[in-house]
C-alpha cells in the first residue's frame, strides 16, 4: 500500500483525489489543505509520495518541496506538483520543476495514477 500525501488549498480537490486514488486501490491517502501543516503531516504520515499544489495562499508548493528536501528524514519522499498555471502542453512535454514531475490542472485520475507510478518506479530503480 503506497502512502500518498495530497496537498492543495482546495478541500474539494484533495477529497476527490483521495476518493479516486483509494478507489483505484493500492493507495493510502492523507490530505492537507494548510501549507503550514504539511511538514508536520509528512513527519507523521510518512508518505512515499507527495502531491503538491504549487499556488497556495500560505506558501508555494515548490517551497514546501524544498523544505522536504532539506529534512533528511523526509528527503526520500517523491514529489509531483499540481498547477493551474502551467499549460497542458508544457506538462505533457515532460517539464519538471526542481527535477520533479508537474501536472497541469484539471488533471484526470488516470493521469494522476500514471504520474504516481512513474515517480515511484523511478524511486524503485534508484534504490
Amino acid at each position, binding site marked *: 500500500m503506497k502512502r500518498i500525501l495530497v496537498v492543495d488549498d482546495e478541500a474539494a480537490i484533495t477529497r476527490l483525489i483521495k476518493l*479516486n486514488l483509494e478507489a483505484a486501490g493500492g493507495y493510502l491517502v492523507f490530505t492537507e489543505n494548510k501549507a503550514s501543516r504539511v511538514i508536520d503531516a509528512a513527519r507523521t504520515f510518512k508518505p512515499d509520495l507527495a502531491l503538491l499544489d504549487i499556488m497556495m495562499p500560505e506558501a508555494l508548493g515548490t517551497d514546501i518541496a524544498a523544505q522536504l528536501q532539506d529534512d533528511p528524514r523526509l528527503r526520500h519522499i517523491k514529489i509531483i506538483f499540481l498547477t493551474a498555471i502551467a499549460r497542458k502542453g508544457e506538462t505533457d512535454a515532460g517539464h519538471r520543476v526542481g527535477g520533479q514531475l508537474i501536472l497541469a490542472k484539471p488533471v484526470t485520475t488516470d493521469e494522476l495514477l500514471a504520474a504516481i507510478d512513474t515517480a515511484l518506479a523511478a524511486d524503485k530503480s534508484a534504490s
Partner: protein
Amino acid sequence: MKERPYDIVIYIRRVALLASALVILLPASFYALLEVKVLGAQLETEGRAKAILVENHVARNDAHWQLRGSRPDALNDAVRAEVLHPAQACEMNFDQDDLHATLLGEVLPHTTSRLIDNQGAVVAEFIGDVRGWTIQRSMPIRVGDAVLGRIEIIDDINHILGTSLLIMIACSLLATGMYWILDRVPLAALHDSHARERAEIKRSLDMELKLRTAQERLADADRLESVGRLAAGVAHEVKNPLAIIRLGLDYLTRQAPAGDEIHEAVLTDLRDAVGRADRIIKDLLHYSRTRVQSRAPLDMNAILENALRLTRHNLDLRRIGVQRRLQEPLPTLNGDGEQLLQVFINLIDNAAQAIDHDGQISVSTRSAWVATESVADGMVAEGDTANAIEVAIGDTGPGFPDGDEDRIFDPFFTTKAAGEGTGLGLAVARNIVSWHGGTLTLRNNPEGGATAFVTLKLATESPNEADTRS
C-alpha cells in the same frame, strides 16, 4: 519647401520652352499689336469739304475716331449713324462750320460702318481692310450720291514688324542661350542629388512607418501583457473548479451503474465540456505568452513534419490527406522551435476544421525574397537572393467569407461551429509569427479553399529580440 538646383534647372527649361513658343506665336499677334497703334492721317477732300482726322485711338475692343472738318453745304443737319458691325456705336455732332463725328466701337479689318443722313443717304462710310503689309482704312464723305472726300488711313506696318522682329530675335537668343547653358549643366549629377533627397524623404517616411509599427507592436505587447496577467489569473481561478469537476466525474464514473447509457452519456458530455473550457484557458495562456522564448537555427521542413505527425490522428479521423511540396534543401532560420511548431499545428488544425471531413491539405515550403522595407506588408516576390522562407498551408474547405481577412485573426473570432475551435488558434499563430518578425496572411484560393502563408525572414533580428533578451 526649399528649391533645389534640379528644380531650378527644370524651371529654367520651362521658361526657355515658353520663349520658343513666343517666337512662334508672335506673328499671330500682329493684328493685335497693330490695332493698339495710334495712327495719324491726313484727310484729303475734293473741293468743298475739308476734314482732318485729329484723333484716332484704337484699342482691341474700342475704336474712337474723331473727324473734324468744314461742314459741307449739302449735308443735312440731321444725320444718324448706321453701324454695320454690332459692336460699334456712332455719335455725330455738327457745329456751324465743322463736321465733328465720333465713331465708337471696334474697328476691325473687313468691317464696314456708315453714317447715313435722315433721308437715307450714306454720308460717310468706314471700311477697314488689310492688304499685305499695310492696313488700309478708308472713309469716303458723301452728300447724296456725290462723294465729297475720303479719309484714307494707310498704316505701314513695317516699323511694327521691325519691332516684332527684334522681339523674335531676342526670344530666340534667350531660348538658344538657355539651352546652351542647360546643355552644360550636369543634369545627371543634379538628378542623382535630387534622387538622393527623394530617397532620404522616403527613408524618413519608412522610418516613421517603422516607428508606428513598433509603437503598434508595443501597444500589442502591452495588451498581451494585460491579457497574460488576466489569463494567468483566470487560469488559476477557473482551473481549480475544472479540476474539481473532472476529478468528480472520475469518481462518479466509477460509481455509475454499469450499462446505464444515459448516465454514461451525461458524464461524457460533462467531460467534454470540461475539456473545452480547459482548451480555451490553455489557448488564452498561449495567446498571452507568444514572446520568443529562445532562438536556435531551425529546419522548417522538420518542424512542419513534426506538426503533421502531431496532428495526424486528427487528420486521419477526418479522412484528410496531406500533399507535401517541401523545398530541399531549405535554408535554416533562427527562431523558437516550440513556438513555430505551435504555429503550424494551429494552422493545420484550422485547415482540418475548415475541411471538416474528406479533403486535402497541401503543405509547401520555399525560399522567398521579401522586400526589406516592406516586411510588414508581407511583400513576397520571386527572384534575387532569397532572404526569407515561405510556408504555405492550404486546404480544400469552403474558404472564409469575403471581408473577414483581418477579423479572422482577432481573438475569439471564429466561423466554425460551437466546440470546433476556441477562436484563438489563428490569433496565437499570428502573434508568434509577428514576434519572429514575420507575417501570417490567409487568402482564399481561386479554385476554392484557403491558404495560410507564413513568411519568416532569414538571419534577422526580430523586433522584440532585444526586448526578449532584457
